[in-house]
């Protein structure tokens, strides 16, 4: 598998347009972030990629072949959903066994090892897990699946700080060991920002951008200072995310950070600094 192509995807739920003519491609072997606000359409897009729902218009193909009811392709994708689809009455270890049935590449020893690391008791039943541990369980299953494409939808829901730290590290260790395509969909950006190689940002059903994190962060910077002076600096520059506290204004300028005008900034007594992905994201999706 080399490439996922999303072509002109539009999805209506009744009268509601969930996705609007979304087109982009994803090359294999990278860690992608699918970012957007609640209800932006991320999960809808993921459901479309994995044959869970069907597009109103447009097509999704992997290596030129449609995903529609394509079992062979689907065997190579593991999708950790936000919703829990596992039967509540079943013990975790049994679910691992059955997941291995459907995904021959599933590594049960690795799954057990991960469960232990996270303090997950696999003798428990699904319904007896807390929100956090349900997420952990689903994430462990996803990591152990060993498929070429692993999709995580809101993997850190309910996880405490320690578990979040552990999960990101396990994701990276997993990816380092076996480079595959990973898609992490979330609205909790800051911690995951550096884990990602590329981001796809969705706003109100539309594609806002698809860029590498590095390009994105080097293509923007923050300018802070006295409001009128800031305005002078940004006169001919593209900018977003204007924030004002009293007379101090902060703005995100959208140009290559190497082009920043230090001299002018010095004259105007402005502070120039890098921008956090989270801040940039909020500004772009407002």
């Amino acid at each position, binding site marked *: 598998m080399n490439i996922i192509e999303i072509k002109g995807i539009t999805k209506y739920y009744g009268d509601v347009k969930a996705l609007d003519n979304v087109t982009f491609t994803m090359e294999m072997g990278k860690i992608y972030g699918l970012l957007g606000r609640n209800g932006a359409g991320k999960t809808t897009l993921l459901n479309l990629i994995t044959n869970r729902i069907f597009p109103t218009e447009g097509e999704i193909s992997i290596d030129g072949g449609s995903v529609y009811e394509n079992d062979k392709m689907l065997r190579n994708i593991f999708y950790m959903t936000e919703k829990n689809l596992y039967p509540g009455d079943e013990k975790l270890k049994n679910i691992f066994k059955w997941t291995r049935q459907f995904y021959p590449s599933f590594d049960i020893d690795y799954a057990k090892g991960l469960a232990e690391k996270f303090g997950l008791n696999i003798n428990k039943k699904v319904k007896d897990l807390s929100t956090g541990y349900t997420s952990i369980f689903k994430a462990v299953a996803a990591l152990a699946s060993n498929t070429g494409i692993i999709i995580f939808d809101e993997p850190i829901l309910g996880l405490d700080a320690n578990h979040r730290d552990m999960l990101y590290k396990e994701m*990276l260790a997993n990816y380092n060991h076996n480079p595959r395509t990973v898609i992490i969909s979330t609205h909790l950006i800051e*911690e995951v920002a*550096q*884990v990602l190689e590329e981001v796809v940002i969705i706003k109100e059903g539309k594609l806002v951008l698809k860029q590498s994190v*590095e390009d994105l962060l*080097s293509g923007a910077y923050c300018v802070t200072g006295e409001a009128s002076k800031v305005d002078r600096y940004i006169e001919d520059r593209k900018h977003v995310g204007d924030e004002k506290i009293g007379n101090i204004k902060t703005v995100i300028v959208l140009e290559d950070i190497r082009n920043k005008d230090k001299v002018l900034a010095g004259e105007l007594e402005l502070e120039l600094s890098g921008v956090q992905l989270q801040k940039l994201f909020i500004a772009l999706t407002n």
Partner: protein
Amino acid sequence: MFLDFDSERPIYLQIAEAIEDNIIRGIFEEESQVISTTEISVKYKINPATAGKGVKLLVDEGILYKKRGVGMFVCAGAKKTILKKRRENFCQGFILPLIDEASKLGITKEEIIDMIEGSFKNEYH
């Protein structure tokens, strides 16, 4: 190795510099193995491509080299290379900003020189 994710300096540059610092301080000795991209990636929760870029930078500058099947090693003479590079950048990276800040605060050249002399006396005696 401390990485400032909020800084405007790209992470890969920070990684490269941190490794250089460790080489200068002797923590990574010449011809010894340094931390791998994978280890950096997992420990600091960074995408391996970013970590790899930092390492590659040092390889290109002749500071690190790759031993197939083993890992990344410090080149012989790396310390010298780094110090030379840093010396060349010292003026640009430290002196100019110092003068900049001083002029902002209205500190004169003579005052700067006094401060420097005084600090040397205290620091190194």
